[in-house]
């Protein structure tokens, strides 16, 4: 009996080993594309090993393009321009690319395979993106579901970013979550501090990363992130500014205002902070204090679901009706929005009605 079990296991393993051996040999023979040349922006030439996806090949070479789903072709963050050698557009890419993008040879980095010499175009800012190692220095509870977390970079590392940009946090496996995931969070500290960053993270029900951050992270833990990413940053003009952001959308605005405090400005600025009740308000004193720092700045919290016993005597309802008083000259006003796609759409629509031009409305959507 015992011998029987052993011989069966041996036979079973033998079948597995034979098949595995065939696969290994096949892999050696079939997916060995040798070394190919990867040309970026017509300038940089990299010699890389062929056979992997463009996303993986680039990250092996320390070039990080944004990717939220980890190369499964579901988030569409890893878009980049492939000029030559990417092969035809795949059905797995089509749903995530607009008609204009398809015509402009935009591809998904995680789906394009590097099999022959390839030419791609990337924004120069991407070369600034790196992977950082950090230690958690401080965790502050801002509200019942929002925490501010400070990450101190490893000795000697510095990060160079624009106020408003974001980083992607890498989670470690915990409980039932077996794989690592990457999630984007805006930097809330000012760019003048380059040896540490602060992120403001709201607990999303069932959220893989925010649950990990809220329930498992403690001071002293090691965390890795990549960045900085994004084209949501403060434009250097003298136009009036409307900031509209609720919840953890306050993070990039905080970074922008602290940055402006360092460099000084006399731009007219108004910040509308939309929230449900007084329990969702945070950093109120700090933002009120900006009103004394800048010549023309107003902080306007607006609550939508306030209760009578809260004794709220500020503004109520939606933020949109209050824009009217804040807009001096719609053609010379920039708007910076940060929040849920629903909020961004509604606010953008309203701002266009007030006469703002669409290309001056900048936003960071929590898609």
């Amino acid at each position, binding site marked *: 009996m015992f011998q029987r079990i052993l011989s*069966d296991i041996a036979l079973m393993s033998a079948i597995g080993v034979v098949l*595995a051996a065939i696969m290994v040999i096949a*892999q050696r023979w079939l997916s060995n594309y040798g070394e190919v040349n990867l040309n970026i922006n017509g300038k940089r030439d990299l010699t890389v090993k062929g056979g992997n996806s463009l996303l993986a090949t680039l990250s092996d070479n320390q070039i990080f393009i944004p990717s939220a789903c980890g190369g499964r072709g579901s988030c569409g963050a890893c878009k980049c321009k492939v000029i030559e050698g990417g092969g035809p557009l*795949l059905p797995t890419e089509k749903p995530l690319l607009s008609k204009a993008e398809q015509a402009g040879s935009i591809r998904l980095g995680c789906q394009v395979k590097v099999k022959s010499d390839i030419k791609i175009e990337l924004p120069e800012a991407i070369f600034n993106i790196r992977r950082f190692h950090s230690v958690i220095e401080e965790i502050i509870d801002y509200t019942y579901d929002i925490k501010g977390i400070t990450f101190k970079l490893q000795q000697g590392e510095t990060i160079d970013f624009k106020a408003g940009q974001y980083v992607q946090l890498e989670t470690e496996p915990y409980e039932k979550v077996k794989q690592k995931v990457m999630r984007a969070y805006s930097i809330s500290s000012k760019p003048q501090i380059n040896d540490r960053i602060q992120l403001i993270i709201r607990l999303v029900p069932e959220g893989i990363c925010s649950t990990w951050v809220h329930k498992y992270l403690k001071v002293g833990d090691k965390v890795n992130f990549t960045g900085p990413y994004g084209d949501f940053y403060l434009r250097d003009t003298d136009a009036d500014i409307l900031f509209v952001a609720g919840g953890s959308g306050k993070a990039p605005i905080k970074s922008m205002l602290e940055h402006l405090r360092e460099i000084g400005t006399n731009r007219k600025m108004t910040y509308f902070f939309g929230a449900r009740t007084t329990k969702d308000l945070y950093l109120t004193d700090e933002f009120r204090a900006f009103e004394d720092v800048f010549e023309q700045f107003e902080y306007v919290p607006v609550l939508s679901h306030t209760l009578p016993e809260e004794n709220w005597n500020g503004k109520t309802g939606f933020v949109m009706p209050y824009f009217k008083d804040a807009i001096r000259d719609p053609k010379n006003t920039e708007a910076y929005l940060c929040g849920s796609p629903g909020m961004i759409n509604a606010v953008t629509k309203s701002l266009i009605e007030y006469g703002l031009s669409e290309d001056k409305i900048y936003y960071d959507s929590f898609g």
Partner: protein
Amino acid sequence: MDISAFVLFWAAIFTSNILLTNFLGMCSYLSVSRELESSLGLGTAVIFVLTVTAALNWLVYNYILVPFEIVYLQYIVFIIVIAAFVQFLELLIERYAPALYYTLGIFLPLITVNCAIFGVSLFMIIRNYSFIQSVAFAAGSGIGWLLAILMLAGIRRKLKEKLVPVGLRGAGISLIITGIMALGFVGFSGIVQIQ
């Protein structure tokens, strides 16, 4: 079992459609049927993989599992054989037929976990099919699966312009349509019975 291979082939398409009668291979059927073009690609890949893996599994079963008396391990062995074959096929096509890879190859990873493939391998063992019978049954099942996904893709294309109740949009209405199609296929069942 002495049904001729020819009868089995047709029966697998109509009276015992692997998808509409046995409800196997639903996963990729529901997710890929959004577009006619990709349905055709996936369906063709299923026909090919089904036929070849059934043949391979038949040989493995009768020349390895039966002589060594480890028939009870057929489930694991079949799965490994299917997975390895699909992987191998993907590498092969990617290397030597890039054009085919872009139309068909990208669907191969989806097929590894398609239960229709595994189901056919098990059916042919349970029903004691000969080699020829197995291959005919597998090819028929593949064509039947392609037929079913093409029909659903066609209907879903029409459905895009129709008002579907919110709660039923997507997989919900697809399952209901599949159910109605399955009822339609019951009409064929009088012709021949193989199960």
